[in-house]
């Protein structure tokens, strides 16, 4: 292997120094990591997945199965990158994988000797037999897992940044080779907005593998020049289109590592009504013994390294082929000074090609095939045999075997949309079916054309069609001599009979020819089963090299045609996509919006502990000193009952219900009657789902003749608004009602405690707050410190209480004014934890009780169901099982001991064995400062008839049992004297 002093597309003026396995690795700008490794003589660059065999660079593109490396260090570490796709950059650090202690002396290579035990499906077979499920199996399994696999992922947070872009264009051209460039040119000339996406760093595709300065280079420069003059063409390089999705949407990743001021990768969602797929083809390996030995490469890759990177991969080359295309490699190698022998499986080789080869000093062996590569660390010779088996195998010395068994068009994107491609036997490949209505049209090598002119003409035509009927595409660019193509004159042999040694079908997953044979013997018939059993095509390369050969072998064994055997399903992504790119900036706190109440800053300034409630951040408790939540909520709850407290309830769902039919609407969505509610009054209501289960509860105030102000629970606010909108826009179009969310527009706070009226009166001296003027469940408008407020007299805590609503912008000053004025009354702010304690003491239901399984009867709320009118759920709530007497009913629990109960604990009758689901479950639990006891709410089978009974509370998670007595869940002030006073 050597770097040539001239030629290639590398920039010799800009040398770079990288590091591979701790040693300096020189290269040039324009190199890939793989070309630099080859130039520096690294034959072995990794170890294989299962058998830890030596592997070298095999290809020059995205299909690379062997040269898998880990890039970077620390948190930046990235395993399983293909060295063939990594741009050479100064300071790049790369390491080989799957070898210990190093690739030259790898302990795991013992697997190679044990390979008879690791044949197809060996892992599955360990699931049955004497050791399955035993400790011994578990022990072995650890080693199996560690021995296989590739690079190790990093467990640190990813320090890189990523970006997402959504964009549109008229025509997306995928692939910047001859066909793609022609398509972009035609569409661009017609004035269409074009995105041309090329996964390589530069445009050109296969042209880049031609010798520098040839006809094709001239063609490329001409086209590029014109493309750059068209402002409607956007050219993106390093951009891989990896998926084609519904509604003409394409997924693409742009790789920007090392580009100044750019994120590491950018994920594009492109909406393109028309697209041209000029994705080219990938060469297929020949299968022979030891075809994985370093020094065996794809023929086209050898040519790429020679012409693009000025690396001569071998001095004595053997080119093994069954088609014309490899002759280009042979001739270029010979021109570069290598000794070349072509081993062609065909007996008939086109005359012109043969003469060209022989003129270049190449020996051509027709009707021969390589049956094995030989060499310990790398190829030193090849065993070549005549296919008619007349004559002895020859051993030919060589340091490079460049093999081509044909090419596989990259039909992936097309197949993601339009399913199965069709098999073309004469070129031994799958190509897209002709689908004239398809929005994604193939062009170029992906259609297995017979000559270069066809690639350009077809590309140009597809681009022009995609751009639509308007505009003028001009004339098709003239063609150039593209060299011999693979698609005609194809010889069917890709694997000679009598191959010797391990012959690999899937290099990356170490699947051998014999594994396919074994799967066949074991009765695997379907191609999808074969794939999963042998794992062929299941590595990170997704069978880009392996699939057709594996299929061909299977079809052979079944004595069927490949077309009958079919292919496996193509799914996105075409090339691996970093999760980070898909995530973009949407991680951590940016996954969802964070909602803060208008009073949030005050809570934070006061040192409140915050709790998450859906998207909301809520003040959970306000610790004094080193109080924990337990101490704080007891103090806060007791203080509210003794004095006064203020809690932020801005998160409540608030909906304006307006219109002449508003009362009718409320009558339908709530179970109770609303026609009698007078303006100025408030009513509690319960809503059901259509199936009769309780959905939500809340209070609604009648602000005017046709205007109501509804509150919902925090959790259900969005769902209920959407449900109202649906009903009003579909089934209930006859109702003249409009609903509007006011949740964000209003701050809300509840002032609770025996001194709340006195305090409020000092703040609103002109408003009559007497029980006669403002009884419970009524409201009045007022101002606090000149801010407009509405005072809803209602109570969730059971104390004398007022909910104060004010437009959001006034929330913080109103809160502040109340806290300041309340100081003489010893006012405190209290959080959601003590608010929960107060509501449990009162026996009010909340989220844990409204769990989507409970009925009005279960909750003791049946009295709120009107019998005089229909409402949502009014018929189905009477279904027999929902009315059954032994349903679990809401009760209170007086819990003994000093631990309390945990929500979710099961309830069993006293003395019963704690087995099965029990007779009920705990929903909400707290310590009650008012009662001086631990209490809880629970659902217990037929519970209301069992009040007074002793039961067991069993916490199976923590293995704790306590006893409790069933009592009314209205623990505190059941008559409501405090709130009504």
């Amino acid at each position, binding site marked *: 292997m050597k770097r040539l002093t001239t030629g290639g597309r590398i920039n010799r003026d800009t040398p770079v120094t990288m590091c591979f396995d701790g040693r300096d690795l020189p290269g040039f700008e324009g190199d890939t990591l793989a070309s630099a490794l080859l130039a520096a003589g690294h034959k072995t660059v990794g170890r294989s997945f299962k058998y830890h065999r030596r592997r070298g660079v095999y290809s020059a593109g995205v299909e690379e199965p062997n040269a898998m490396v880990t890039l970077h260090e620390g948190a930046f570490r990235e395993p399983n990158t293909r060295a063939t796709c990594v741009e050479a950059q100064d300071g790049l650090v790369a390491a080989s994988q799957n070898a210990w202690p190093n690739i030259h002396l790898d302990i795991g290579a013992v697997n190679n000797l044990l390979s008879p035990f690791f044949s197809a499906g060996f892992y599955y077979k360990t699931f049955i037999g004497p050791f399955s499920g035993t400790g011994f199996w578990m022990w072995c399994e650890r080693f199996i897992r560690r021995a296989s696999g590739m690079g190790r992922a990093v467990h640190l947070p990813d320090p890189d940044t990523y970006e997402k872009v959504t964009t549109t264009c008229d025509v997306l051209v995928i692939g910047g080779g001859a066909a793609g460039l022609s398509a972009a040119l035609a569409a661009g000339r017609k004035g269409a907005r074009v995105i041309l996406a090329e996964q390589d760093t530069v445009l050109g595709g296969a042209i880049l593998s031609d010798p520098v300065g040839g006809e094709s280079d001239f063609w490329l420069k001409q086209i590029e020049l014109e493309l750059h003059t068209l402002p409607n063409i956007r050219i993106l390089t390093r951009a891989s289109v990896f998926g084609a999705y*519904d*509604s003409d949407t394409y997924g693409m990743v742009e790789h920007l590592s090392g580009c100044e001021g750019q994120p590491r990768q950018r994920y594009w969602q492109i909406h393109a009504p028309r697209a041209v797929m000029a994705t080219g083809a990938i060469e297929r390996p020949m299968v022979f013994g030891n075809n994985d030995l370093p020094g065996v490469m794809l023929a086209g890759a050898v040519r790429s390294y020679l012409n693009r990177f000025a690396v001569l991969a071998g001095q004595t080359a053997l080119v093994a082929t069954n088609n014309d295309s490899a002759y280009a490699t042979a001739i270029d190698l010979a021109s570069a000074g290598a000794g070349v022998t072509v081993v062609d499986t065909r007996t008939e080789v086109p005359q012109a090609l043969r003469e060209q080869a022989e003129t270049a000093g190449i020996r051509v062996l027709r009707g021969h095939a390589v049956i094995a590569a030989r060499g310990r660390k790398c190829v030193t010779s090849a065993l070549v045999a005549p296919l008619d088996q007349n004559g002895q195998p020859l051993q030919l010395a060589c340091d490079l075997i460049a093999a081509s068994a044909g090419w596989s068009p990259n039909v992936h994107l097309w197949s993601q949309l339009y399913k199965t491609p069709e098999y073309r036997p004469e070129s031994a490949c799958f190509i897209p079916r002709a689908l004239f209505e398809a929005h994604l049209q193939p062009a170029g090598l992906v259609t297995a054309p017979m000559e270069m002119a066809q690639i350009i003409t077809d590309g140009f035509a597809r681009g022009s069609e995609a751009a639509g009927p308007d505009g003028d595409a001009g004339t098709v660019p003239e063609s150039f001599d593209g060299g011999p193509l693979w698609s005609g004159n194809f010889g069917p042999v890709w694997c000679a009979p009598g191959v010797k040694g391990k012959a690999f079908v899937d290099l990356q997953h170490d699947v051998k020819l014999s594994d396919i044979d074994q799967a066949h013997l074991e009765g695997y018939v379907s191609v999808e089963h074969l794939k999963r059993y042998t794992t062929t095509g299941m590595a990170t390369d997704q069978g880009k090299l392996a699939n057709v050969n594996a299929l061909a072998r299977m079809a052979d064994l079944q004595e069927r045609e490949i077309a009958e055997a079919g292919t496996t399903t193509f799914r996105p992504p075409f090339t691996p996509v970093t999760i980070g790119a898909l995530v973009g900036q949407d991680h951590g706190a940016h996954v969802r919006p964070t909602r803060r109440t208008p009073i949030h800053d005050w809570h934070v300034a006061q040192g409140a502990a915050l709790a998450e409630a859906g998207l909301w951040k809520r003040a959970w408790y306000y610790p004094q000193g080193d109080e924990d939540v337990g101490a704080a909520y007891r103090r806060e709850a007791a203080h509210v009952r003794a004095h006064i407290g203020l809690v932020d309830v801005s998160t409540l769902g608030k909906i304006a219900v307006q219109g002449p039919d508003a009362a009718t609407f409320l009558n*339908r969505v709530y179970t109770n009657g609303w026609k009698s509610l007078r303006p100025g009054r408030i009513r509690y209501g319960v809503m059901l789902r259509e199936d009769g289960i309780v959905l939500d509860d809340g209070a609604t105030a009648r602000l005017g003749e046709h205007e109501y102000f509804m509150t919902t629970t925090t959790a259900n606010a969005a769902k209920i608004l*959407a449900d109202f*909108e*649906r009903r009003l*826009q579909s*089934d209930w179009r006859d109702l003249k009602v409009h609903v509007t969310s006011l949740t964000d527009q209003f701050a809300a706070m509840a002032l609770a405690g025996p001194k709340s009226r006195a305090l409020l009166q000092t703040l609103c001296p002109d408003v009559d707050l007497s029980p006669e003027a403002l009884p419970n469940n009524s409201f009045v408008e007022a101002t606090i410190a000149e801010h407009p407020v509405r005072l809803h007299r209602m109570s969730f805590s059971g104390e004398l209480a007022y909910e104060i609503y004010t437009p959001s912008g006034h929330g913080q000053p109103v809160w502040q004014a109340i806290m300041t004025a309340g100081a003489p009354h010893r006012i405190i702010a209290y959080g959601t934890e003590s608010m929960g304690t107060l509501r449990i003491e009162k026996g009010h239901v909340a989220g844990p009780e409204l769990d989507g399984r409970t009925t009005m009867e279960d909750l003791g709320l049946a009295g709120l169901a009107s019998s005089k009118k229909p409402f949502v759920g009014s*018929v189905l709530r009477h279904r027999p099982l929902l009315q059954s007497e032994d349903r679990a009913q809401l009760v209170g629990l007086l819990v003994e001991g000093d631990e309390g109960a945990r929500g979710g604990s099961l309830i069993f009758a006293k003395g019963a064995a704690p087995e099965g689901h029990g007779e009920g479950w705990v929903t909400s639990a707290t310590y009650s400062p008012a009662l001086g006891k631990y209490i809880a709410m629970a659902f217990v089978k037929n519970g209301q008839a069992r009040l007074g009974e002793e039961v067991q509370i069993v916490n199976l998670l923590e293995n704790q049992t306590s006893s409790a007595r069933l009592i009314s869940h209205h623990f505190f002030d059941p008559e409501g004297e405090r709130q009504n006073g």
Partner: protein
Amino acid sequence: MIRIHCPICGQRSETEFSYYGDATVKRPDEHETDPALWVDYVFTRDNPRGWHREYWHHVQGCRQWLVLERNTLTHEVSACHLASEASS
């Protein structure tokens, strides 16, 4: 990725919408008391392979409810109307 042509907002991505369900079922009259009809409305659904009418909500857009003609096999959307204007 489905793209939906909202009559109010134009062509928008699926991520702005929420799916609700079958738009071919008809809610019984408000005063209907036969439970069988209500059970049918709430629980009985066809699961067609091919074209279907569905409610979608442009929840991150104009908040209009839409009736879509969507092919459950190919994800094609052939028509999209405001629910408030759709023929029932």
